């Protein structure tokens, strides 16, 4: 589904991604772990099409299409979803309104009929109930005055409504208490499907206790240092990252 080859990117002239290779098959869940500043967040932002990054080399194919040639909204409509690490507040813009516009933009691109207000409301209410969210979320401004946990929950809600082909979740687990973490995990697990891939960017093993990854990658210094199965995550939890660097040098 997603094939990243030798991807290099700069931000304000500084080289952050230094040749990333990663292949993600349909139905797989991958975890990307690694120390702060290693480039994990940059990778998902580049995949989503953020303009602040300058691509200096490599390629990304998404369902056979040249992802890097697509503007961000087209990537989204093609099924790429980014769960933001810090979801932005958009004061005065109704949460439900944005989500309905997003869903209909995607449906339109796929040649489907737009959902009307009634259909949308019943859809989103069901998803909110599943996520244990209060209905007041519908009428509040996008992330306006939300707590950290509420923002993350809102990201997952959006993901459930948009049903992406590829979900990139950027530290969705950070700052969550254990109950919120379980709810987020429940949302992610409910989306696991044969035709859908999920990438979890995380610092901690604890999310992976609830969402079991097929593959775990360790990101360091702008590239993938080591890949393995879920046992790698446990090993990282126990030993930290330093041994990997040493292993590589040795």
């Amino acid at each position, binding site marked *: 589904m997603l094939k990243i080859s030798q991807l290099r990117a700069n931000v304000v002239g500084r080289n952050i991604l230094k040749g990333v290779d990663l292949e993600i098959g349909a139905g797989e869940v991958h975890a990307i772990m690694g120390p702060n500043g290693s480039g994990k967040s940059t990778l998902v932002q580049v995949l989503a099409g953020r303009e602040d990054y300058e691509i200096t080399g490599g390629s990304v194919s998404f369902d056979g299409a040249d992802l890097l040639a697509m503007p961000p909204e087209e990537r989204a409509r093609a099924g790429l979803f*980014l769960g933001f690490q810090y979801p932005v507040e958009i004061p005065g813009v109704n949460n439900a309104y944005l989500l309905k516009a997003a869903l209909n933009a995607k449906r339109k691109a796929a040649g489907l009929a737009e959902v009307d207000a009634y259909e949308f409301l019943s859809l989103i209410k069901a998803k909110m109930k599943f996520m244990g969210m209060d209905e007041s979320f519908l009428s509040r401004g996008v992330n306006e005055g939300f707590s950290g946990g509420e923002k993350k929950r809102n990201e997952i809600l959006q993901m459930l409504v948009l049903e992406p082909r590829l979900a990139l979740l950027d530290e969705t687990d950070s700052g969550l208490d254990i109950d919120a973490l379980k709810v987020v995990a429940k949302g992610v697990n409910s989306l696991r499907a044969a035709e859908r891939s999920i990438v979890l960017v995380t610092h901690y093993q604890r999310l992976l206790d609830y969402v079991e990854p097929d593959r775990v990658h360790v990101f360091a210094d702008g590239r993938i240092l080591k890949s393995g199965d879920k046992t790698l995550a446990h090993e990282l939890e126990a030993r930290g990252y330093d041994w990997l660097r040493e292993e590589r040098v040795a």
Partner: protein
Amino acid sequence: MSSKATDVETLLSRKYQHGFVTDIESDSLPPGLDESVVTAISRKKNEPQFLLDWRLKAFRHWLTLREPTWATVHHPPIDYQAISYFSAPRPPTDAPKSIDEVDPKLLATYEKLGIPLHERARLAGVAVDAVFDSVSVATTFKDKLAKAGVIFCSFSDAVRDHPELIERYLGTVVPPADNFFAALNSAVFSDGSFVYVPAGVRCPMELSTYFRINAAKTGQFERTLIIAAEGATVSYLEGCTAPMRDENQLHAAVVELVALDDAKIKYSTVQNWYPGDENGVGGIYNFVTKRGECRGRNAKISWTQVETGSAITWKYPSCVLKGDGSVGEFYSVAVANNYQQADTGTKMIHIGRDTKSTIVSKGISAGHAVNTYRGLVKVLPSATGARNFTQCDSLLMGSQCAAHTFPIVEVRNPDATVEHEASTSKIGEDQLFYCLQRGVSAEDAVNMIVSGFCKAVFKELPMEFAVEAQNLLSVSLEGAVG
């Protein structure tokens, strides 16, 4: 003293006779401004003597004034002698004969605003008679208002039919000597609107200039006077929500509102005069004096404005809170794109006890535009218990535009409470990217973000106006980002 005045009048009337003969044939005055022109305007409209005297006094005062320079706007000097101060509506021969002759760019804009076809033709100035049945519409609403005792007519009609009300209230809120443009307007105003809502009456419908414009074409120097007597309530909507092409360059209007005991006046404006093209060529200079006086106890005056048009806007709808317990409100969205300049805000003058004012100002700048909020909150020693809340937010789109905020607060009563909040934000790259990442197009995303920013003001507008204001905003800001 009196003989001297008579001499002047004789002199004037002689001059006027001379000017008048040519006028009657062309139904317009040649460019230029002197006392004979002022007199000719008044005579043409068959005004009573008191009004002519009033105009002349204003004119003489205007001669002693200089154009103000304190606003953060720049324009080439205006030659007041090059303007014709009385002109008949554009002759049909100049107007396009059919909608096919109208600038397609203009028509495309109308289409985006969702204006019906027959309306588009009218707005573009197509010389088509009776494009829609305005007569029956006008009659229906006039009957309804007459039954309620509400007077709503053109200013000229009011001068003819209700001179006592004009004499009593005209210039009592904005005196002719108030400022340069108010003095000019007082001398040469051609027409405008007049509203009188008698005591205890709630006006049965929203009053809109829309109806009146169909009845009488108003010029560039409009005069509006609205009086709400004791316990009366009225909501007045001003302005055409469509981008109206206008050959006039200078628009200097005066609006006066008077609210007596327990009266409420809500005045909503959607101003969309021609802003000039993308390069800043052309456009209206909109220099307007708007002021309301809460003359009675517990009176309330509320200004809501959405300003998207004009090359230059210079406008400070204000409230004089004289009556104890009276309330003033100002809700504003001012948009400046391309080379537009907007210098707008409000003045809240607290005189009575326990008077309350609220200011919510949202300025949006894009392109090379400059948007300035200028506000004054003044609490006089008499205004014990006065309260004010001010919120001014600026939104910048792109890096070539600018926003300024000049909030002035003068409190001379220690018991007053004055709160001020201000913010300036760039249209968030983060916000924009967030929406794009959800699949929303850049254009829709900008509309959404801007509407959200303006929500606190839009909710003050009457429903149908709010929708149009939102459409207008998106048209005004088209291409500003992305």
